[in-house]
């Protein structure tokens, strides 16, 4: 059981929760996720850890209301309990000093990219961050991202804030400027990660993405989160969630995410 200590509405359908989870916070590392249930009858859903504090024994989770469980979670308030939370799951991000690293967060992906960018900066990397959203109202954490980046570029698809366009256009600009990028780290909607990957592949820039497929147990037991990476079946929960983007079968991933669309409407 984890108490919600703080709730913040980041945009109409994106909520931030700081929850008490002492033991998980002790071990959590950037890139890892948790699985939670909002009730006895609930689903198990994976959420990437957006931040953690070992001192306070807390985890920060950012939730976009897209399905049954995330909508139920959006209704929870400070002081409420999340009955079941388990983690930290997945492998931590492979963060070391490499040089210039571009961190890209799209939409809800801004949350999980944050602790990774922070860690990369701490390790002495030059971190250029690009964060993007469909429109200004759903953009969050600009200031926080600014603090952990040497440079921050904000984009919106509709041009309501920052640069108009996609994160890939900004990335293209950085590549064109001739600066040597050691690695790109991208988290966001699958089509965005695919677009980033397609771009960097042509330039041979190593790119890592964090995948968030449908999962049940999160411990390697069900195989629901499988994705082909370099022609091999990988389980995101134990082999990932981060993979070398240039080997990920994004098409397959996009398809599998649609598996329960009909049921989602029924629920």
């Amino acid at each position, binding site marked *: 059981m984890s108490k919600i200590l703080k709730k913040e509405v980041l945009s109409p359908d994106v909520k931030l929760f700081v929850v008490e989870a002492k033991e998980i916070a002790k071990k959590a590392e950037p890139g890892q996720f948790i699985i939670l249930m909002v009730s006895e009858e609930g689903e*198990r859903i994976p959420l990437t850890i957006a931040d953690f504090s070992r001192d306070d024994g807390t985890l920060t989770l950012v939730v976009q209301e897209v399905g049954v469980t995330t909508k139920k979670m959006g209704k929870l308030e400070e002081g409420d309990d999340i009955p079941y939370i388990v983690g930290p799951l997945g492998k931590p991000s492979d963060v070391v000093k490499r040089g210039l690293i571009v961190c890209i967060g799209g939409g809800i992906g801004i949350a999980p990219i944050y602790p990774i960018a922070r860690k990369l900066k701490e390790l002495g990397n030059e971190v250029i961050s690009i964060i993007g959203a469909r429109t200004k109202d759903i953009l969050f954490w600009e200031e926080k991202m600014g603090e952990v980046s040497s440079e921050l570029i904000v984009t919106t698809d509709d041009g309501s804030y920052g640069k108009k366009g996609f994160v890939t256009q900004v990335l293209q600009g950085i590549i064109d400027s001739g600066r040597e990028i050691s690695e790109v780290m991208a988290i966001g909607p699958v089509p965005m990660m695919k677009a980033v990957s397609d771009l960097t592949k042509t330039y041979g820039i190593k790119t890592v993405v964090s995948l968030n497929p449908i999962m049940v147990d999160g411990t390697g037991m069900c*195989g629901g989160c499988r994705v082909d990476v370099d022609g091999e079946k990988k389980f995101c929960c134990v082999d990932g969630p981060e993979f070398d983007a240039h080997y990920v079968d994004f098409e397959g991933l996009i398809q599998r995410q649609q598996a329960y669309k009909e049921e989602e409407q029924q629920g």
Partner: protein
Amino acid sequence: MEIKKTQQDMPRQKPEERKKNFNEVALGYTEDMALSEAARCIQCKKPLCVDGCPVEIDIPGFIQLIKDKDYMGAALKIKEKNCLPAVCGRVCPQEDQCELKCVLGIKGESVSIGRLERFAADFEIEQTKGTPFKRHAISSGAKKIAIVGSGPSGLTVAAELAHLDYKVTIFEAFHKAGGVLVYGIPEFRLPKSIVEREVEYVKSLGVELKTNWIIGKIKTIDDLLDNGFAAVYVCTGAGLPYFMEIPGENSIGVYSANEFLTRSNLMKAYKFPEYDTPIKHGKKIAVIGGGNVAMDASRTALRLGADNVYLIYRRSMEEMPAREEEIENAQEEGIDFRLLTNPIEILADEKGKVRGIKCIKMELGEPDDSGRRRPVPIDGSEFEVEVDTVIMSIGNGANPLISSTTPDLDTNKWGNIITKDESGQTSKKGVFAGGDIVTGGATVILAMGAGKKAAEAIDKYLSCE
């Protein structure tokens, strides 16, 4: 008195009825039936049946108590050796164990030990329903032992060690205790209320249960040993499900049996939308495999409303590893067995949804390493079957979470933990292991047997320390 040559039948729900509900199929003996079956036991001086039981239940002892109509006594007699009698009475393959050794089996049918075990265990549950178990206290200075996993092996080792006055903590990764008993075996074969009751019993012995604790992540084995646990027993069960590595396996509607059963059993997807977890209610289902899990998956699919369930198995009926009773149940319910058939491709529509499965006919060749005749594809015999769901039930590999964070814990090439002998002692001091993580996919009772032996070994280890 003449001894009846055949076993007393146990009433079951009619196939036509039961295939539409998730209620238990086998209904258990009435008192008269139990007495009539118990009367068949000749109370051998040297009971061979006990040798056949991995946890060495005093079988003639408890059957005699049934004859004496002391049903509660019978249940307690079983519990001296087995903390999960209502589970074992239902899911043990008695025909390959105690009942195989029964002398009556030479000239007729063995005593139906399993059904009698179930009768006694159910009697106790019925009598004590609603009353909480009396809590046992463990001595304050008792040594602490950590058990990783709350499946049959973990529950057994916990109960045994609590009896010996150790302070036992079970760590379970899921939100519910029971391991395969709750996520794997369906309600219609093992009601979850029974598992819950048995878990409560183990807790009442003084065992602490921590759910949502994933060892290997939130704490490593070394963390446990460094933080006051004198010994650790690893029984994490089945791991990563195997797929066939054929084209189309990532299509929508392809499940591992683990996922399909976990959704339905643990997450109660069969009660969707009352429960939030969805599951595909396919109309034409192919289940690949021939083990007990394949039977469970087929019969679950049927109950979720499938019109046709094909069980596709590459060998013949003779080699099928599932229990005879389960095969029979599946056939009665109308599962369509397609034997000597092997899938070679899963076909999907333009949206990536399963639309069929391409198979090839097989014939049996020379015996392979397992001693069973090796199935060989027949050239040119490919054919397609129209299905909308495929469930892969071809076994599991080992879970890597413990081994990857415990470098000095030796594993074999499949990732299973290596133990020195039956004691369960691993390469790491103070760490023991048992159940499927050691043996690969086996049975509930073998995992319990391993737990029992490990408990003795752990006690011995801690006594000489």
